[in-house]
């Protein structure tokens, strides 16, 4: 049985890690990272079958690709907290000679990363390739990916969306962080995504929706998504989140996409996230 309370506690620690990492170097992307903390925690601590003794080829494992690489703080925290590398290394985020680059990369050989991301729109294609690779290898495990909603403005995403359904890539579960915010403002104002559910359905994907900041719902929806694999269609989860979730003054504000809290704001943020498993 899934212990939702325990997952919530981990997510609280992940949020503490995010704000502390970004504060320490006064750069990075806290907004989307905080919004996706519950999803990433559920994925790595409940949903996926994965091995922290990292192997690039991931044979017999579920794999995850972060396409919106700027939310690297949440990725790094979840990887460290699930044992891919020591948590003190989180303190090297964005510093010189670090494996924790501003955007995730395989280049510095950080365990848990399988492709570089940051330039948006590329991760879905890579996830499809990994999913095809599993099929060719007779590996029945699943490929997960996460994308920003603003990222869907990239054309390559739609090449990949069309490909995945046409080729029945049904071992793929792609989640969209639907927080409605991007750097220049609300997605509605910058470039409206329109009816995303209808768009994915028109491309013949199976579509689930969830509140990405309700741990119960995240766990249940991810469980459900796994039951939808192997049925001839790729699966999309439209995940409604609040950018900056967990830190009240960041919540729902696109201004917190890519700026760091100051000392006072850090203290305020950590006070709102009292549950800790032990800061790095």
């Amino acid at each position: 049985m899934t212990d939702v309370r325990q997952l919530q506690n981990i997510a609280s620690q992940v949020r503490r890690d995010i704000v502390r990492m970004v504060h320490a170097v006064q750069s990075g992307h806290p907004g989307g990272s905080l919004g996706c903390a519950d999803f990433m925690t559920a994925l790595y601590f409940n949903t996926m079958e994965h091995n922290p003794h990292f192997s690039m080829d991931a044979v017999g494992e579920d794999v995850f690709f972060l396409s919106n690489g700027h939310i690297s703080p949440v990725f790094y925290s979840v990887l460290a907290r699930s044992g891919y590398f020591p948590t003190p290394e989180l303190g090297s985020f964005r510093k010189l000679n670090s494996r924790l680059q501003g955007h995730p990369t395989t280049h510095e050989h950080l365990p848990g990363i399988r492709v570089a991301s940051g330039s948006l729109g590329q991760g879905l294609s890579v996830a499809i390739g990994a999913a095809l690779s599993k099929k060719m290898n007779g590996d029945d495990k699943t490929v997960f990916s996460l994308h920003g909603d603003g990222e869907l403005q990239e054309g390559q995403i739609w090449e990949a969306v069309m490909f995945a359904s046409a080729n029945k890539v049904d071992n793929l579960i792609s989640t969209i962080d639907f927080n409605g915010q991007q750097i220049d403002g609300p997605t509605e104002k910058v470039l409206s995504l329109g009816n995303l559910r209808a768009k994915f359905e028109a491309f013949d994907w199976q579509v689930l929706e969830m509140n990405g900041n309700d741990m119960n719902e995240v766990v249940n929806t991810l469980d459900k998504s796994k039951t939808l694999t192997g049925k001839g269609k790729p699966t999309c989860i439209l995940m409604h989140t609040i950018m900056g979730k967990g830190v009240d003054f960041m919540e729902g504000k696109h201004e917190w996409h890519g700026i760091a809290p100051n000392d006072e704001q850090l203290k305020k943020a950590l006070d709102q996230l009292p549950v800790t498993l032990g800061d790095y």
Partner: protein
Amino acid sequence: MLKDIQVLNEKETRGGFGEGIYETGKANDRVVVLTADLAGSLKLGPFIKDFPGRFVQCGIGEANMIGIAAGLTIGGHIPYTTTFANFSTGRVYDQIRQSVAYSGKNVKICASHAGLTLGEDGATHQILEDIGLMKMMPGMTVIVPCDFNQTKAATKAIADYQGPVYLRFGRPKWPNFTKEDGSDFVIGKAQVLNEGADISIFACGHLVWKAIEAGRILEEKGYSVELINIHTIKPLDEAAIIKSISKTRCAVTCEEHNIIGGLGDSIARVAVRNFPIPIEYIGTNDTFGESGPPMDLLKKYGLDSPNIVTAAEKVLKRKSA
């Protein structure tokens, strides 16, 4: 002597790729081929027929194809992407940069219809910047074979070569003269086609044959010509280049590519850092191409053998000045 080089037949370099990829796929079940609606042009028919489970048709979506190829490496596959050179490079530069090169993925980017000899389709398809684009990419190996046999050999060799590779070849039938078994091709090792003492001619791709033609004329004029096929532009066989130019003390570089950023610039970089000599460049000069028959285009843009002879005589004069 260059007149001793025998032409076996005339075949398309892309046909060498087609035969090479079939044999590679047969020998190695990790090899996967992707295309973006150009399976026919890249001569993939036999591969698709015998290995349908290792063929991925991406439709007209090159960016997606590059990403899928990167993903296929995870799990141990060796993906070969296939499309025209323009759509293999310029169109997908950032996808190659992030998902393949920076990510260290073992993807083979196989590009046909490169350069002016694509012919009548014109400048939209005649990329003359791809060697430069790809050689600037950290970690990318760049190979430009000169004929059918060498393209086949290179196609096979890159399967066992770890890391991203850009393999550039072309459309027209072209004199085929390297060894049928490909034993004269080694990645990263310059191929000395003729030893000589007066001038070094460095060439790649289709222009190796044009350089042979030019070299024969120069031999008739009494010059001793060293002709070297630089099929691997990166990593560059610097030792072979230095050895040659320190003997001949002048050089001409020949490529079906912009002289800005291509083979010539690579040779010049080695020369200025090791053994400065006069060099003349044969290549397009910061221009787009146009529609026309391949040979007429080479002539109009100064890439045929008479131009190479003229450049050689000019550089020989500069050497003795």
